[in-house]
Each structure stands twice: as C-alpha cells, then as structure tokens.
C-alpha cells in the first residue's frame, strides 16, 4: 500500500505555464516534486543542500535553488524549468549560446547554469560581464567549462538583442 495519504496536502504547481494539481507530502522539496511528481528530470539533484546550483529554476521570475524550496510553498507561484525554455525546435538564446560555445561537457549542471542566466537576462537584457559572472557563481561545473560558460553568457546577450531587433523591424 502507499504511504498514508493523510500526510499529503493538495496544491497546484504552475510549471512552464501549466497547472498541475498534486497531493504532496509537506516535506517534499520543489526539486523532488518536479523530478518525481511531474517527471521533469531536466532539473538536477546534486547536493540537495543549496551548495551547487544544479537545481536552479525560476520562481516568479527569480533564479532559485529548487532543493531549498518546499513544494507546498510554491503553491500558486510561477515556476519555470529548463523544459520550458525552447519553443519547439527554437532554442532560447541562452541555450543556443551554450551550444555555440561548448559551455558544458557532461551537461549535468547545464540546466541550472542556463536558468541562472535566463533569470539574469529577463531582469536585465544588457548585463555587464561582471553581472554575467555573478549570475552563475552559484552554479558549480565540475567539468570546468567556466571559461566557455562566461563566453556563452555574453553571446546570449547578443543573440537575444539580435532577435529583438529582428522582431522589431
């Protein structure tokens, strides 16, 4: 039999624009809810204590560590994950820049890195190099792709700017 349902609470998680009605244990993190209840496994579990940034998602527009948030505290909030960035085959500018600059090797930290930069570019489409670096200082890449991640961050700004100009003209 399953664990006692009495310990579970109802909540609605809004992820990538879709509402999900779930019964979840209050102690379950947003990270586990994404990975286990919604099978959104793009967001990775690495340290599970807010040290590494691999589980970074956007909550109400801000980059947050999903392992440090309880799912029940995200009821009604707007959660965006790596699965929500690309529109069909069209990559987000940050994703495109990561491919272009080989900003990953094993790829396990990549969703978190990309979400940190997406949150930055949403807040400020023209960040300085220092701001780009700061946005991903909390995202550990053990393969050591940092030099390329920094370049990809700068390139993402250019791609996003070019797309904006293209759309405006």
């Amino acid at each position, binding site marked *: 039999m399953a664990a006692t349902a009495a310990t579970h609470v109802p909540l609605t998680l809004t992820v990538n624009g879709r509402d999900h009605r779930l019964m979840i244990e209050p102690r379950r993190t947003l990270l586990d809810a994404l990975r286990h209840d919604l099978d959104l496994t793009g967001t990775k579990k690495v340290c599970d204590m807010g*040290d590494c940034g691999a589980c970074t998602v956007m909550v109400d527009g801000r980059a947050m560590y999903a392992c440090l948030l309880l799912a029940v505290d995200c009821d009604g909030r707007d959660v965006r994950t790596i699965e929500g960035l690309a529109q069909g085959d069209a990559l987000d500018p940050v994703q495109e820049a990561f491919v272009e600059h*080989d900003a*990953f090797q094993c790829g396990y930290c990549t969703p978190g890195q990309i979400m940190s930069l997406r949150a930055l570019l949403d807040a400020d489409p023209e960040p300085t190099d220092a701001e780009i670096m700061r946005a991903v200082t909390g995202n*550990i890449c053990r393969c*050591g792709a*940092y030099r390329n991640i920094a370049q990809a961050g700068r390139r993402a700004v250019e791609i996003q700017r070019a797309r904006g100009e293209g759309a405006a003209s």
Partner: protein
Amino acid sequence: MTTLKITKGEEKGKLQLEEQEPEMAAWGTDAALAVVGQRHPRLEAIEKVTGRAQYSSDVRLPRQLYATVLRSPHPHATVAAIDIAAAEVLPGVHAVICAENTEPIPWYHGSFVFDRTVRLIGDEVAAVAAESEEIAADALRLIEVTYEPLTHVVSMDAAQAPGAPKVRDEGNVAGEPKVYSRGDPDEGLRQAEVMIDRTYTTQSALHNSLEPHGCTAAWDGQTLTLWDSTQSIFTVREQVAQALGLPEHRVRVIKQHMGGGFGAKQISWKQDVIAALLAQRSGRPVQLMLDREAENLVVGNRPVSRQRVRLGATRDGTLTAIDADITQGIGAYMTGGEASNVSGMYQTLYRCDNVRTVQTPLYTNLNPGVAFRAPGHVEAAWALEQAMDELARELGIDPIELRLRNYSETEQLEEKPYTLPEGLRLSYERVREAFGWDTRERPAGEGRVRRGVGFAAHDWVGGSGSPPGYAWIELNADGTADVVTGTQDIGTGTRTGLAQVAAEELGLPLEDVSLHLGDTSTGPYSPVSSGSATQATLGPAIRAAAIEVRSQLLQIASTAMEIPVPRLSVRQGKVLVDGDERRSTPVKEIMRQVAPHTLHGQGARGANPTEKVARTFGAQIVELEVDTETGEVTVLRVVTAHDCGRIVNPTMVDSQVIGGITQGIGFALTEERVVDDRLGLVLNANMEEYKVPTIADVPPIEHAAVDVPDPEANPTGAKGIGEPPLVPTAPAIANAVFDAVGIRVLDAPISRHRLLDLLTTQREHAS
C-alpha cells in the same frame, strides 16, 4: 576469417587478444581531411541544453521504487546484530536487505557487499527500497544495528606505527610495495654535485562528479537491466553478473549520458548489486542514486601520498639520479580501479640512467582510493616538478632549459623510442612562445601583492589507446550511416570525435552519421573509458569499419555508373569521378539503386607498434599573484601545450584543456578532504566545505595547440587529451608561488591558511 594474435598478458595472467587488422595507411601529417580537424558542436548538445538528455538518475519506469542505504557511523566496528523488523512493515517500504537476510556476496578484496565488519564511516550495512526517497529515509531510521566498535587508523603515520590497529587481517600494507630500479641510484646520488632532497605530500581529492554514482535496476524475467552512471558498461556487466551468479548475456547495462566520472566510475560499486537485489526482492524497478555525502564517503577518492624525492645532478644540469620513496593511504579496500602508479613519472619523464622508486600502499579506515583523472601522475607531478624547479634554481639554469638538458626521446622502461619523440619538445616550444617566457617580467617589489610565474611539464602513460576496440557501420539505403560501438561518452565529446572519424572515412557530411554507444546488448565489446584512451582506441576501429563500407560502396557505384573503381572516390556525400566533375553522384542515389539493403562493415582496433611506444606529453606556465597579508593565491593566466597527436575536433580538445586546468587549480589551491583523525570522520563530505572551483576562480586559459599528428601511434594519428591538462597545473602553481614569495609549499593544497602560516614563519625568520 579473423586471425587472432594471442599472447599471455601480464594483467591477471589472462590471454590478450589482438585482431589482425587489415593494412590501413595512417592519415599522415599532410593528409587532406575534410571532417576530422574541424570544429563541431557536440552531437548531443541539443539534448543537454534542453534538459532532455536522460542520465541514470532520470530513468522513470512504471512502479519504480527508490532506494537508500544505511551506512556505518563507525570507522571500524563489528556488526553484532541488525533488526529490520520495524522498517519492513513501514507503509510504502517494499524491500529491506542486509547481512541477516542475504547470502554473503564477495566484494572488494576479501570483503562482502554487506560485511559483518565495517571499515569506514559510510560502509554499507542495510538498504531499503520504498515508494519515495522520503519513505526510504524514514525506514532507515527504524533499523536498529548493534555495533561493537574497534580501534581505527586514519593517517598514514598511524597506519605505519608499531602496534597500529589492523585495518585488514593481513596488516596495513596493501600487498607488496612496488619497487623499481635501473642503473645504480646510490652511485648516481654519490656522483651528484647538487642534490635536492625533499618530502612532499598530496591530499585526498574528492571527485565530486555532479551526478552521483548510482543506477536504476529492472528485472524482466531472468534478465537484469541496469541504467548505470558508469564509465564502463561492460565492466559493470561482468562484475554484477559475477556477484549475482548470472550469465553475462542476462545482464544488460545502458549508459547514454553521465554527469561526470573522472575515473571514479570505471568499476562497478556496491550500489549496482544492492539495487539489483532490491529490485529482485520487491519485484519492481529500483533506482539507487547515492546522496552527496555517500558520494564523498564511499565511492573513491584520489589517495593521499607522501613522496620523499631525491634528485642528483651535475653542475651542468645533467641528472645523475632520481630516487622516490612513495607512501599512499589507499583507504580500507583495494577496489581494482586504482590505476594509481605514482612512480611512473619518475621513471620516464626525464632521461636518467639511475632511477629507483618504491611505492607502498597503506590501508586506512577511509574511503577506498580509485583513479582520479591522471591517477598517480597528478601526485607525482606535484613533487617531481617542484623538485626540478628547485634544482633549476640551485643550478642557476632556466627551468625549461634544465628539462631540455634531460630530454628523453625514448621510453626508458622498455628503452624504445617514442612514436613522436619531439612531442614534449614541441610542447615546451609552443608554451614558451605563447606565454612569452623568455621576455617575461621579473617579479618586482616587496609590496603586499606579489606576482610570480611557474613552469611544469608532464608525461602521461595513457592517451595512446590499445586493442580491443570494435565498431560496426551500416550504410543505409538513404545514404546515412549508423556507427555502432559499445563504448561510452563520459562527457568528453566521444560521440562527436568518433563520428567525425567515421564521416571522414565514409566521405559523408557529419550530419549524415549517427554514433551509437552505451548499451551492452546492442554494441560490440568496448573497454572502460579511462586513460584518455577512447578516441585512440575506437577511432582506428571505426576507420577500419568505414574503409570496408566505402570499398563496398565504390564497387556498387562502379557497376551502377560503369566507371572503374580506381577513378572513384567519396567526399561530402558524393561519389566523385576522377577527371569528370559533372558525373559526381550523391551517395544516396547510388544506394537507392541497390535492392533494399544496407552495407555492413566492421572494424577492430589493431595492435600498437611493437618497436616504439606511444605516449602523451605537455607543458604549462602559470602566472599568479599572492596576497602576502591573506595567503590568497589568485591565478591570473595559464598557458598550456600538449602533444595529443592529431586534433580531431579543436572545440572538444579546448574544452578538455580548460576543464582539466580548472580541476588542477582546485587541486592546487582549495580541494582537500578533511578528516578528524580521532573520530575517523570526514568533515567536508559535501560541496559547501569541500571547495571545488567556481567561475570566479578561473583565469584566462590559453591552449597553445601542438596539433602534430602521430601516425605511428595509430592510423588516425590522434591521441587522448582527457587527463593530461590537469597534471602540470598544481606544480606550475606551486613553482609560481615560490617565484612570487620565495616559499616552497611542500604540502598540497596551497590553501590560504597553509600559505599564511608559511608567510608568517618567513616573516618571523626575517625579523
């Protein structure tokens, strides 16, 4: 019929097989290649940036359970009793296993998966599979274990002390010390006009791959499938089959993507067997991923080392003797995946007639050692390359010049020439020029922040690849190709580099080639992805398979086009006719004329040369600043050059270079497993207090590529680059620190507190 060359190998006394490869002309230095040598994004790039890449941790099967492991809180104890009754009846729990309800399964050397003696904090005592990770964790708390604690040892000194507690029944020396000697080292030291005699130590570094070790296990009748985070699907298959008494063809291991391994995933670990047992007991798929603490406690580390190094030289800088007495603390078990030959670099990097090395591995009640990116060489380079720097200063000879005076064009263990004897010299030249070594500014001033530069060189026993390695290629009816191997891409770009070799030889554009790997049931046997060997092992096998397919294609084209084969060639997806451009025909049009059919080719990795030895080499220069008030080292710039033969994809190689150096900076400055000796407790088994580099710690890194093919090494001329860039980084940093502040840091890492202590001592002596 395939002809096999069968020799009795040294490794485990097994027979070594080499398939006699058809003659294949190597791609020479001036070969005109269209796809090999080009930059290209990783073939799996889109999957990785969209979150679609499925790692072992991401497998989701119907009715899947989640497992977790109860671990010993004692560094050494006897397990007297285990009571799992309360855990078994917790709602949502489907299986609980431990020594009390499973057959003893041998694991490690003389131990068991669930042993009645635990030998380190973290050793496996019981495991639970439940409907969620949370329930599994609850169940662990309900298991009652009665331990009878035993005395333990943590440090190498304690392990060697008279009357020390025994980690293993046979004592604390793991096997026999490895002794090597050539010439007369004692006489060489006597003849020396200058001698360096120093003892260096290196710390235990933790791999901290972001994806922990783990797997998902599912039974289908009598067949077990493991989605495993591993560098060697066939090794896992063999070890798990053996542990469970299964025939190998009933075990399938799959690994498509892996979140880092760096050596620690080159063997099977206990969780593979535990997950399989839990899946069997529960009748449901079971996922068992280690948590971060367990990842840092039980599945490997770079073993600590102490190295007493003596170098003797004449005044002109000629080495008269190299003597290294090496002790390693290898933890509680021999895993079979150590590959940690600290002695090797002393024996081969510099020309010297009188060399002695003694390497003594010691058991301690800690995490067993396992290969970590260039195992042994990283530790040796820390000591040898600092000693060479000291010697250069003692002699007043430029450090690069000193190395050139002791240059070896031969591999001195076998006394055979290297396949590319100028490889190391080219690395010296490239890095010297790219950095501006000869015109560098001398460190100046007595200010608070002081600048220094340091040089270090290295060789690496890997990178050359070897048999076995196999590939199959299917050329499809539409002119696309499937390349099938049984290797794995551990994040290094293997898929891409190997696909480029196939595309080159098939004459197809890269987008028309798919490279398959990572499944024991669909690909031919492939060895572990380690030793920087995969490109050089699999590349030639793929080339051989592609040559076979291309030959068939040209015969068909010859018939279809009524042109003799010698006038035909394939390039960029077209069959070209010599002297008649208009008649060039797309491959897919030729293939369409064939009755429903694919062309099949297969290839094997041929033998390495017998009269020469293929190795990889490199040299690195670091510029940095030391803050004398805080002990903080800031690396400003790294320039590096490596002989990795032909560069198949410069983007992949550059990434390996920056990644290796980034790990080297961590090893040099911040990474250190800290253990409380009294408790046997690792104090920083997490990513907060174990400091791996962040983006803020990494300076500009310039790869001054050598890029000279090594066609005598293998027919692709390419060698490995995965491990080498890390090897010289830490000693280059240490040498630069000396250059900046005149302090020789003998113990790695050069943490702020250690350097601050040394700076304080220096100040006290001066005053």
